[in-house]
């Protein structure tokens, strides 16, 4: 019997880029840290800038906002969208509806990256995201222990960006990565992006 997920992945392979042009000063990675049970799928991503960034974000309007949403919102409010350095994301567990412990886990993820960046202020400089099953606590020790490894594996070439995109995925049949070069006011810039999602998709973020 054919695996329908594998068949879908094969048919969607045409949407996965084989090359890209990526923004200067960003280094990214995707590694396996053990949130996903299969022992090999990438499930921890780090995106870090060499220099402080301006940042903005929109978040779910669902009343039950997950802990990473709460922590990232607080970070953006606390920094006024300035001096943000990184994003850390795990897949496999959403850290949603996990109470005070889940909130502290999300803070621990953010802080672990801040420390590697040399950021020591009380306001975080790292946005945090999680996706996966709702209602379970993160295996936070595995994540925090492996954040230095993810940080060390950062790079700026296409393979790093593709691994990063894979580490965001859950039930996705393919990683969603894009990049382009564009001109504004006579200057050339680059933009890259990663998205994930296949189900529970009807966003209305603000």
């Amino acid at each position: 019997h054919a695996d329908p997920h594998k068949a879908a992945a094969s048919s969607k392979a045409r949407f996965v880029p084989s090359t890209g042009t990526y923004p200067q000063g960003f280094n990214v990675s995707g590694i396996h840290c053990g949130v996903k049970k299969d022992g090999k799928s990438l499930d921890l991503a780090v995106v870090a800038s060499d220099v402080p960034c301006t940042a903005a974000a929109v978040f779910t309007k669902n009343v039950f906002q997950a802990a990473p949403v709460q922590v990232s919102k607080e970070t953006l409010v606390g920094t006024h969208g300035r001096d943000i350095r990184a994003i850390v994301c795990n897949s496999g567990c959403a850290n949603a509806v996990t109470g005070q412990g889940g909130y502290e886990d999300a803070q621990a993820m953010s802080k672990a990256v801040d420390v590697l960046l040399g950021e020591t202020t009380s306001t975080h400089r790292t946005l945090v995201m999680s996706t996966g099953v709702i209602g379970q606590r993160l295996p936070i020790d595995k994540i925090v222990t492996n954040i230095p490894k993810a940080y060390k594996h950062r790079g700026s070439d296409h393979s790093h960006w593709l691994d990063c995109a894979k580490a965001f995925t859950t039930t996705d049949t393919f990683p969603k990565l894009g990049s382009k070069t564009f001109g504004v006011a006579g200057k050339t810039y680059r933009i890259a992006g990663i998205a994930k999602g296949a189900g529970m998709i009807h966003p209305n973020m603000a």
Partner: protein
Amino acid sequence: TLLGFMATDAPVSATALQSILKHAVDRSFNAISVDGDMSTNDTVAILANGAAGGPVIEQDGEGYDALRDVVTEFAADMAKLVVRDGEGATKFVTIKVKDALTFEDAKTVASTIATSALVKTALFGQDANWGRILCATGYAGVPVIPTKTSVSFIPTDGSPELKLLVNGEPENVNEERASEILALEDLEIEVRLGTGGGHEATYYTCDFSYEYVKINGDYRT
């Protein structure tokens, strides 16, 4: 859950970046639906590190509109990938609603059509069921002129549109042609509300298949 981020080496002020992101997301990630369910974790972020140099782009300053349009188009391309990966989806469907009184009205109608289970199962069944599209339009709760409302399928192979309803009157639909259009992986549905307002919105969705139920009947919280 939808997660996403964009990173650019353009220099952008925090105020401008927030404004650009809102504009872009309202026309991309906030204009998609796979199954009508909103997650507890949906997040889209953007980082701008200015590493490529140049003057800082400020809200309403030089380069703002150009950058906003680039980010919007890029975000829409990313959002479309999410829809194309919709669990069990076999169709990628663009819904364009035109001639609404406001952008928000147009988007509300498009969203209502995109989340109608009966529209989505008809798309899976390759059934040119414009009645379900019209029904969803009618309960969206925004001003619509029934006698000026039109519905068409726009083929994605460049062939002429197939008019299903014109000014509230059903067309004599060529079912064979309709089947050809619905057999394509990509499909566009165009709805004109006839209000004279001239505003339009685009929404992206997919069909609803047997596979969706199989996948989500086996995904334990």
